């Protein structure tokens, strides 16, 4: 029997999975932040840009779908967070908008900003996108300054249900060091994934050996920030919610979530192991080029598990620092049973979508990118 509670949990899982896929696909942004330093001449840079340029639309589409799915399944989060943390989301969106045209336009004659201009925009997206998305995701644990009062709808002078406390409208998230730590963790993860992806996708000895050198350093930084955040997470209190809506502060809430949900803990640990295996095998075995698949699937599992920790097991996934009772959880913020049912039917298409993405990806990547291909008359950026 499919109950409303089941649908709420199911949809949080779908959101978490989309979040995991999105973070994995941020390797495109990681590549944007690295290509200038990883490629020493124009031919190398062009190979790198064309390599991520064939994948940017997957990241972009996943971001759009993540937003759409959140809107449909947890509309109160969509309205509260996007309408409140206005500047944080706007900066993220602007950075992705600039990226969307930069690949296509950079090599075209008459493009106004010149090749260099568009490449700078790619770099801006590469730095800002993953970092700010990481900061935004961190607020799922650290909370945000908002209140929700549905009685306001009857007030003609100010009928807005969700209101934000800080006049910084989202930028105040940067003042919490733990948000910044996760932001940096996601940023360096995106760069690690980009390096693994380039090693797999670009066939150039110089680029490959440089990527392997970079990988060591970037992985250390990623692990430093990621483990610091995880350390904080398992020691911090969290807001617990009971099914009738009472919200209480619970010490070690996220650690308890891990221990009380062995499935999530297993997913988390397996994900971390896979990420590490991908990195270590690439560093240790010279001929190993499939690290992106190990670390990529590990990233999906780890991030999905982290988001499940935020929402499952009676947890407020968007804690309010202004009024704990305004905090958002699965029971007070999700869509109606009918909408969740409809969306669940649609979600059955997701494996089919993933299958054709995988098929097309393989078809395009059958041959790695080479200098010769860049010199041929085929379509390229």
């Amino acid at each position: 029997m499919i109950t409303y509670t089941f649908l709420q949990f199911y949809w949080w899982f779908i959101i978490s999975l989309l979040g995991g896929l999105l973070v994995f696909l941020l390797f495109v942004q990681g590549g944007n932040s690295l290509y200038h330093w990883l490629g020493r001449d124009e031919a190398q840079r062009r190979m790198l840009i064309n390599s991520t340029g064939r994948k940017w639309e997957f990241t972009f589409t996943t971001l759009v779908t993540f937003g759409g799915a959140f809107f449909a399944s947890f509309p109160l989060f969509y309205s509260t967070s996007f309408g409140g943390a206005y500047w944080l989301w706007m900066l993220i969106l602007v950075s992705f908008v600039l990226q969307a045209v930069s690949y296509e336009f950079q090599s075209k004659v008459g493009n106004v900003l010149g090749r260099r201009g568009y490449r700078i925009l790619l770099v801006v997206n590469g730095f800002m996108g993953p970092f700010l998305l990481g900061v935004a995701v961190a607020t799922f644990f650290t909370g945000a300054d908002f209140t929700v009062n549905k009685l306001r709808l009857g007030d003609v002078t100010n009928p807005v249900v969700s209101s934000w406390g800080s006049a910084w409208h989202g930028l105040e998230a940067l003042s919490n060091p733990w948000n910044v730590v996760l932001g940096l963790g996601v940023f360096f993860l995106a760069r690690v994934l980009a390096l693994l992806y380039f090693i797999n996708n670009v066939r150039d000895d110089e680029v490959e050996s440089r990527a392997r050198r970079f990988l060591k350093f970037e992985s250390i930084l990623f692990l430093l920030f990621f483990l610091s955040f995880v350390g904080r997470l398992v020691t911090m209190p969290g807001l617990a919610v009971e099914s009738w809506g009472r919200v209480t502060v619970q010490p070690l809430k996220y650690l308890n979530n891990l221990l009380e949900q062995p499935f999530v803990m297993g997913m988390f640990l397996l994900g971390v192991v896979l990420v590490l295996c991908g990195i270590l095998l690439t560093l240790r075995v010279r001929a190993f080029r499939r690290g992106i698949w190990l670390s990529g699937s590990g990233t999906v599992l780890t991030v999905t598990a982290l988001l499940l920790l935020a929402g499952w097991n009676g947890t407020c996934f968007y804690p309010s620092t202004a009024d704990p009772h305004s905090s958002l959880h699965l029971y007070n913020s999700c869509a109606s049973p009918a909408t969740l049912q409809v969306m669940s039917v649609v979600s059955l298409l997701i494996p089919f979508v993933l299958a054709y993405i995988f098929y097309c990806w393989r078809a395009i990547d059958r041959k790695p990118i080479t200098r010769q291909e860049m010199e041929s008359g085929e379509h390229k950026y």
Partner: protein
Amino acid sequence: MDASLIDWSRAQFALTAMYHWLFVPLTLGLGVIMGIMETIYVVRGDEYWRRVTQFWMKVFGVNFAVGVATGLILEFEFGTNWSNYSWLVGDIFGAPLAIEGIVAFFMESTFIAVMYFGWNKVSRGFHLASTWLTTLGATFSAWWILVANAWMQYPVGTHFDPDTVRNEMNSFGSFLEVAFSPMAVVKFCHTVSAGWLTGAVVVVGISAWYLLRRREERFARSSMLVGSIFGLVACGAVMLSGDSSGVMVGKAQPMKLAAFEGLYDGSEHAPLTIVGDLKIPNGLTVLATHRWTGFVPGINDILEGGYTLPDSTKALSAEEKMSRGVIALDALTQYRLARAAGRTEKAVIMREKLEDNMPYFGYGHILDKQDLVPPVPLVFWAFRIMVGLGSLFCLVFLLLVIVQYKKQLTRWPLLLRVAVWCIPLVYICSQAGWVCAEVGRQPWAIQDLLPVNAAVSALQSPAVRITFFIFLVIFTLLLIAELRILFRVVKKGPQIEEQDNEQKQTD
């Protein structure tokens, strides 16, 4: 709410939507034309058609990128700038957006990569399928976005739940009502066929430009043939769907129809105004009702009420609707307070009161009845521009098909010049269409349920003003860049004949 916040929020959304709508129609139309051309290539096995297709794909790619970029902002602006809207109707409105992402946008963005990078990597059949699937994805995408938009104009399949304080779907049946509402069907047909028309006008216009300069003649003639036949088909679809759209607007949004016509006092035999005093007697009645006799209310009738509605009831005046809206809002507050205090009896009474007045819920947020009237001159002229230019395109396509049939294409330079000028005109036409649809329904974010002043996010007006100008600069820059790139691409041309000559020399 701060009036300036509402105005800037509207301006920002209008800016984003209008820029988005500059790029999307060409994607929809050119996609089909590319698909037809590549199909000819695969069926005939003629390398020439492959190069023709590839040229139009270049144009498609430049345009597509900006459409995607503006679309991202549009989706998230529902949350950032219209947060109350997102909460109150997200349960219904969010589903089409999510389905668009899962079903349509992924299809479009996955197969477009194969379309561009797969020429020498996948089989001909797979490549052709990818081109069609990219276009199909874009068209599915348009379907779901227009389902969402149509629901705002004609909110079916929904009920207001005072416990959750939002509009919700009841069942799978409500979803089907939303997804296949008559408004969604006519909107989809009208908008997508307008996109086809845009694609056809661009292809025909560029081909005409080459013919006038006696360049790329073989390419231009082939493209002209495909473009003009497709354009003529699109014209038929636009006219038929436009007619159905008029009937739907008359039924669901009488104020919008009255604004289209600048009709202040309605009648049983309402005339259709061409311009000024030039009118077609009884024309509006026939267009809006598909009958010879039928009352079409004017703006004053809708504000004053008292006329007989199609269901034989008397129309309420704006004041009556507003006062019942206030009762509904008050009943909602009282219901929530009674529930919180455990006063079940009072809660039941208040709920009944709310349900009795629910059809007028949105009117509770209207402060002045004049706010219910959209900007009439803007909508009136936008409607005329849309219909007038649409008729011109039909005529141009018809003539082009005839002169091509008679093999006299280059004997009609004036027609070719008009075809070139149709390129900017088709954009003016589609923007005018957007103004009709979206400005014409003001002040409603959701017809009769939620006016824009109750839909907005609680932000400071200067913040929205800043983002408005940021987007204005970014989008304008992108538009200029796109136009410059496209001009260069067209100026350079496909160079098929030159490549052929080079090939012959090498052989």
